[in-house]
């Protein structure tokens, strides 16, 4: 069998664990560091030919044994450790009774190797093996996951670390991968079914009579009543922060629950690199390590100029590498609290196994505000709003030639923070709401953050370590609106689900274009473009950071520059798995020449 090598290696390794063999096959070995000395190598696969098998495997969550969909028998799957410049062959065998796939998240590769069924290839049939072959042209922290239905949430995800050819500009003595995920005993399909029928199904943090009384005592009868009535009138819920919450999810760190406490060992004084990967299907988490400053050095696998922070938010599919320098001989808690505060994942950095530090209390659940509805400028005439360029013409996704009148937009690497009034188009019945105004919120830490004195990472902090070669100003501008309907659990772009809009969005090979994302919804989304980098236009001038996944806040208008250097069809979608599955998905096609369209 093709997977015999990795299996044998795994068995050999787990044999050395002695009494711990009962947990065989339930955790990847790199998640084991709490039981082993730090020098034990992680269960990782390297080399030019790697065999992976997707199958249903028993999986233990604390004291409950269940079944997960796994890569090589573990959740997360094995860590792939590869090298820049390497020609790699990844043979993926599907032992499920349904089609499967693996997508290499953030990796630049030929379109037919990208692993999206129905876009790149037909998928991997049950009982068959698909060989992915590509040359690795980058380095950094990445990951891979299934792109078929709910398999990703069910366990098909794993880290992929690519070492640089040249010496790594980031210095560190020790490193750990910290893969965050959200485990559920229900399937994605079942969750979507519940949410289509009852949108607040998983939310047990709604406002109740008790909250109302508290608000009346705090703010007075009239303001409290006004506030509740306003939300009720709009048929919105200010506590709608996460579609799926801690009610259904157990939050994992490297496949371990908070009780199992994943632990990374360090020697005081060492520089420890932590590679955070958010593999959660629907979860945004706020990461902090009380007692340590974190220096962010990489985002989405791309080096950035070091930024010191106390806390950062990581959305589905984003990655952040940080450096910490624990000096004391004590344990530190790695705390990953969910955006809606309904749960958390926790691990520990410690000089010796078995040590723990205090788990901080969860903060109280925040509320959405007027700003999240794009209503903050309702009465502020002084903010000179300008009409959305082409949304005003009612065709937001159709490209248009930039003319010289857009002075603000002509500067490459600009950050346009002016609020833009939403056009009259309300995107049809499938879109619940349009904000009056949208604007960049890249300098805001996000819902529930930034009001407790902690220094929180914001997108405007991210500056690439070195300027990237393509410094052209975008010659074409596209605009896409992130839309949806909370009451029906519909998610879409420009009011249309993928099933109603299968025509691809066209990029012209070689062009530099600007793509504006306008979030008309009151939720955070993470936009993921396959095959090409998105250069976040965050005002960093020549140092725009590159991302594969861009977090867009409620009522935010954000733009990325794209160098359309990869011909072929590519997926573009929200990386919240349930949003993608219900329609927030498009195909982007980079074509050499498009007959009948403007250049």
């Amino acid at each position, binding site marked *: 069998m093709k997977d015999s090598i990795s299996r044998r290696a795994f068995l050999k390794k787990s044999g050395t664990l002695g009494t711990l063999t009962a947990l065989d096959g339930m955790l990847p070995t790199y998640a084991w560091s709490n039981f082993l000395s730090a020098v034990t190598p992680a269960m990782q696969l390297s080399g030019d030919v790697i065999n992976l098998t997707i199958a249903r495997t028993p999986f233990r969550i604390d004291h409950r044994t269940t079944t997960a969909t796994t890569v090589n028998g573990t959740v997360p799957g094995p860590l792939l450790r590869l090298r820049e410049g390497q020609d790699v062959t990844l043979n993926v065998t599907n032992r499920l009774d*349904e089609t499967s796939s693996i997508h290499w998240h953030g990796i630049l590769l030929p379109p037919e190797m990208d692993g999206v*069924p129905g876009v790149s*290839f037909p*998928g991997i049939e049950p009982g068959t093996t698909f060989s992915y072959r590509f040359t690795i042209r980058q380095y950094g922290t990445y990951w891979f996951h299934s792109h078929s239905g709910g398999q990703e949430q069910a366990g098909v995800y794993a880290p992929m670390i690519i070492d640089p050819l040249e010496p790594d500009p980031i210095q560190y003595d020790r490193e750990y991968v910290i893969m965050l995920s959200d485990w559920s005993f229900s399937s994605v399909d079942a969750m979507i079914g519940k949410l*289509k029928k009852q949108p607040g199904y998983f939310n047990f943090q709604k406002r109740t*009579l008790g909250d109302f009384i508290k608000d009346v005592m705090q703010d007075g009868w009239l303001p409290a009543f006004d506030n509740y009535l306003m939300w*009720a009138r709009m048929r919105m819920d200010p506590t709608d922060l996460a579609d799926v919450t801690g009610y259904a999810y157990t939050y994992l760190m490297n496949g371990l629950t908070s009780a199992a406490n994943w632990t990374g060992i360090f020697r005081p004084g060492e520089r420890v690199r932590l590679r955070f990967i958010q593999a959660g299907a629907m979860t945004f988490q706020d990461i902090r390590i009380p007692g340590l400053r974190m220096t962010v050095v990489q985002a989405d696998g791309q080096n950035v100029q070091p930024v010191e922070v106390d806390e950062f938010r990581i959305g589905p599919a984003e990655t952040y590498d940080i450096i910490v320098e624990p000096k004391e001989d004590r344990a530190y808690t790695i705390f990953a609290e969910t955006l809606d505060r309904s749960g958390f994942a926790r691990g520990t950095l410690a000089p010796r196994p078995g040590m723990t530090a205090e788990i901080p209390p969860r903060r109280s659940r925040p509320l959405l505000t007027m700003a999240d509805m794009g209503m903050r400028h309702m009465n502020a005439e002084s903010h000179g709003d300008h009409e959305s360029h082409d949304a005003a013409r009612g065709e937001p996704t159709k490209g248009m030639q930039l003319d010289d009148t857009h002075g603000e937009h002509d500067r490459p690497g600009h950050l346009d923070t002016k609020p833009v009034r939403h056009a009259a188009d309300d995107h049809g*019945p499938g879109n619940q709401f349009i904000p009056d105004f949208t604007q960049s919120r890249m300098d805001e830490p996000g819902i529930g953050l930034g009001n407790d004195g902690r220094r929180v990472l914001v997108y405007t902090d991210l500056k690439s370590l070195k300027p990237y070669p393509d410094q052209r100003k975008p010659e074409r501008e596209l605009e896409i609106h992130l839309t949806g309907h909370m009451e029906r659990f519909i998610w879409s772009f420009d009011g249309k689900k993928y*099933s109603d809009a299968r025509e691809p969005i066209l990029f012209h090979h070689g062009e530099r274009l600007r793509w504006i994302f306008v979030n008309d919804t009151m939720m955070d989304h993470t936009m993921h473009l396959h095959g090409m980098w998105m250069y976040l236009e965050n005002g960093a001038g020549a140092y725009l950071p590159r991302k594969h996944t861009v977090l867009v806040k409620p009522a935010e208008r954000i733009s990325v520059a794209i160098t359309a250097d990869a011909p072929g069809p590519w997926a573009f979608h929200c990386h919240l798995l349930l949003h993608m599955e219900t*329609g927030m998905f498009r195909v982007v096609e980079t074509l050499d020449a498009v007959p009948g369209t403007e250049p």
Partner: protein
Amino acid sequence: MKFFLQLGAGIVAILFLGAGSSLPAASAEILSDKAKQTLPNHLLQSRGEYHHPTHSDQNYAFLSAGVLEYRPGEDGGDFRWDIQGWYGGDFNRLWFKSEGERNTAFKADHDIDIQLLYGRFIGKYYDFQIGVRGETQIFKGRDVARAHAVIGFQGLAPYRYEVESALFISQDGDVSMRFQTSRNFLLTQRLILQGRIETHAAVQKVEKFTTGQGLNNIELGLRLRYEIRREIAPYIGISYDRSFFKTADLVREEGGDSSQVRFVAGVQLWF
């Protein structure tokens, strides 16, 4: 007998109507034609659930009992139900509704109502519904039945009122209306108080169905439920039902009580 024939004919009619106008099936064909222009051929030959990047056109089935309750009374007690469900996607749904009661103290012994409707999602919050309704009332030893055409709106009104309204035109051309609204108040995350109003009105008097001209009745309900799971919520409550004008006279002629307060105990269910 005649009633069931009519109801059957209505069901057939609605199924045809549904099949002809909606369209998830029809539009899927058009879309796959479009997809053919952009996807390589080998992608289109594959079939199966996970061959597509998303499943945003999936259909779901929903069944819900908003009212399913026992009403203790002098002669053994009555019951009342309001059940509805749908099958379909986000925009087009086939609806089923049944509402009725056994009420020995009020007009007919049994009052049973079944509707089959096609619903189209419009105006962001409402299903526009059209279809048929069969209605039967069973009196002591005497049954009456009739069929109606139905046109209605259902959805979520501002301030979070669940609203359901319908206009009925009977086989004999008699026009009547039903309006229902309910609202939830969260006492805690799981203990929820629901207020519910249902009212009927008619344009013509139809004595056979104990229906007078104008406002027929108003039913006010207050139900306190506890959601063990979201899908299962036992409740207790109180219901006040009052008939008006000519309808009240007809109810009294039948030996019923035109104004009654009932304690209720039941369970809200959905899946």
